[in-house]
């Protein structure tokens, strides 16, 4: 009896208590980077043409991409993607070359062809 709660469990079966895999991945690509951005659903504001081709002069993470994207999106649309604290909202799903991004630290790379970024905001339903 009287075993400390935090002294019982051993191991990290979910891998959550260390930095996630993306953080431990190879360093993001430095230097200029071509991306094409696809917006869906409510983000398809008037005047937006899918895809938007962007060149990130020195950017290599989603955070850099979103900084560049800010010049092309109205503030209301941007507020649906990123919190006031500058983090990706959980209702906003971003896919980098088909893989769902964990957050804005996700690296973006291109190898010959532009990286494909897809963004959609899922609807926060109520009730149930």
């Amino acid at each position, binding site marked *: *009896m*009287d*075993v*400390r*709660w*935090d*002294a*019982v*469990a*051993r*191991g*990290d*079966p*979910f891998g*959550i*208590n260390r930095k996630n895999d993306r953080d431990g991945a190879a360093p993001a690509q430095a230097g200029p980077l071509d991306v094409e951005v*696809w917006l*869906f*659903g*409510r983000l*398809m504001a008037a005047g937006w043409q*899918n895809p938007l081709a962007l060149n990130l002069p020195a950017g290599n993470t989603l955070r850099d991409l979103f900084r560049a994207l800010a010049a092309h999106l109205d503030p209301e649309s941007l507020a649906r993607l990123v*919190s*006031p604290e500058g983090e990706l*909202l*959980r*209702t906003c*799903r971003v*896919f980098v070359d*088909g*893989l*769902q991004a964990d957050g804005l630290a996700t690296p973006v790379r291109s190898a010959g062809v532009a990286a494909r970024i*897809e963004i*959609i*905001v*899922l*609807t*926060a*339903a*109520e*009730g*149930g």
Partner: protein
Amino acid sequence: MNLARPDFIEQGDDAWVPSSCALCYGSCSILAHRVDGVVVKVEGNPKSSIGKGRLCGKGASGLMCHYDPNRLSVPLRRTNPRKGLDQDPGWKEISWEEALEEIAAVLKRLRADDPRKLLIQRTTTVTASRIPFQTFGAAFGTPNVSTSGGGLHCGNGAHLISGIMHASWGVVPDFQYCNYAIYFGASKGHGAGHASNSNMALAADARARGMKMVVVDPMCNFASAKATEWVPIRVGTDAALALAMANVMVNELGVFDAPYLQSKTNAPYLIGPDGHYVRERDSGKPMIWDAVRECPRPYYEIAGADMALEGAYKANGVACRPAFELLREHLKKFTPEWSEGVCTVPAANIRRLAAEFAREARIGSTIVVEGVTLPYRPVAAISFRGSQGHVNSVYNFFAADLLNHLVGAADVVGSCLGFAPASLGYPGTGRPRYVPSPDPDGLMMVGTWMGYHYPYPPAKPRMPQKMGLQDLFVIGMTSPFLDSADREAFWDKFELPYRPEVLINFGSNLLLSIANRRTIAASLAKYKLMVSFDLYLTETSSFADIVLPDCSYLQSWDSRSMFPFILAHPAGMGEWSWPIRQPVLPPEGEQRRFSEVLLELADRVGMRADLNAAMNASLNLQGEYRLEGDRSYSHEEICDKDLKCNFGPEHGLAWFKANGVLTWPKKPEEVYWRPFVDVRVPVYWEFLLSVADQIDAITGPRGLPVQSEF
């Protein structure tokens, strides 16, 4: 009666088809017995842990739903432009082409004008309708998607608190190991509710094993009738009892699980005179008091054992105390004598119940389950509908759940469990994999959820864009404003920049399920177009402009008939089960499956690429299983991709048609996940202060000051 003979039914047909029930959100796995093209019986599927081979009376009578003589079999359009409780719609049969063309034309115009003018609402009964309708809403661009419809919500406090404290939609005792369960207006294992058929047997076995069950309820109902002890209580006063029990445990008996509180809650976080955390200046992280080095430190820098739970300190130049010290002091006023006057439970009984709960918790004990040593706390305080279906819903539920957290009985062996809050996934693929994770303050965020209105952290309140004003009143999981009598006044007050014009309804019958039917009727009558998917005409569909004849659950496909698991997958050790729903019978007449109708509407509106993107995001389809561009996939194709993506190419729709359900064993680390995951839960709700201030900053100047406790 459906006597059609589908192509897949052969002469001399006699088949048991594995599928899923849809008579409630429990979605138990079933076997449907079909003879010569007629379903003659529905039973539970013993190969699945979703129901464990049992079926309730409602599920067993599902045939009556399917073979209802009033089933719709052709689209209908109203001819009477007047809508009201006493109005005959004057239904006229129309073709699907007419119906879809008319609906698509309106939706196309609306999407170009302002997609927020569309409201989608759906019944909770068909759990698997969640993805099709939520993705349709996301693709269309409306933020207005409601489960159940305006104001109807069975578990506002329950789902919120279960989410914040257990990363799950609800809670249940760990029946296999629990020795003492106290129910506050709950029926888990004794009536309706999540995983009801599975829980029935587990609860019966637990009682036979000797688990003491105390049922706190105004009525001696079905749970009380099977209980060891029934505790009658005044309606809606459960918190008074729970808080008095907590007071007795902490202040009279001095029993609480300090190591749990130190390492798994925000009990050691220092609270300043303003009620907020004292935060480190550079990192902004909440601080605790390092009892060894006698100095304040960010919470993540030292072991829980060194964190002070009591005392008065100074940090950042301000006087502060650990949250637990404040909680302990706060509880002192809830004496058993005070409680008796509120809830009618005698003070002596309150002291006895508290002592029993504290003793049976066996604080500090461990147990080995399948070779894994785990904390053992065989007690559970369980709440649901009864205790939180009142004013102070959240507080009633939270007070009862606090009992669990005071003794460390949260998601460990024998304790109060969430419904499958963590999963390592099917061994062959590692999917679906989800687990709670910490926010920047170290507090728990759910690993998965029923929708995208997450319980914690709350969004920052703002001027509303949603009809239900949930983006202003961010804590509540539902809203009364979709159909309330004063909704227009509130929309005016908070400058909602549009008004709803079109309602797509799926199976909800608000006029029957919400008390104030005249208010609901007035609300429904205002839509310029209302479309309703229904099995048969209802009180609510009589307000529709177009009614679409849906297929029943015995005629439908779903690749995830019971997911997310946090809704109703049985908790505790055993097996994971992933069942599908498949047609046992074909559509009759011109009935069509809603899932296929939504896909066709997306094509007609010109938003298939958006819908494919929303499906990719909602189903988390990866690699070759992602939906591409604006290609038109059938619902069956999407189901096949979903299954193969999760369980490998050999486990596509064809495999599931033959087998019905895929099962694999649970691991102790999944069921009893909390010791393995570095997250904390709030016994002190510091974040509520900021939310209240932020709401009041918007509502106060507009003549609606909000009291912080709400």
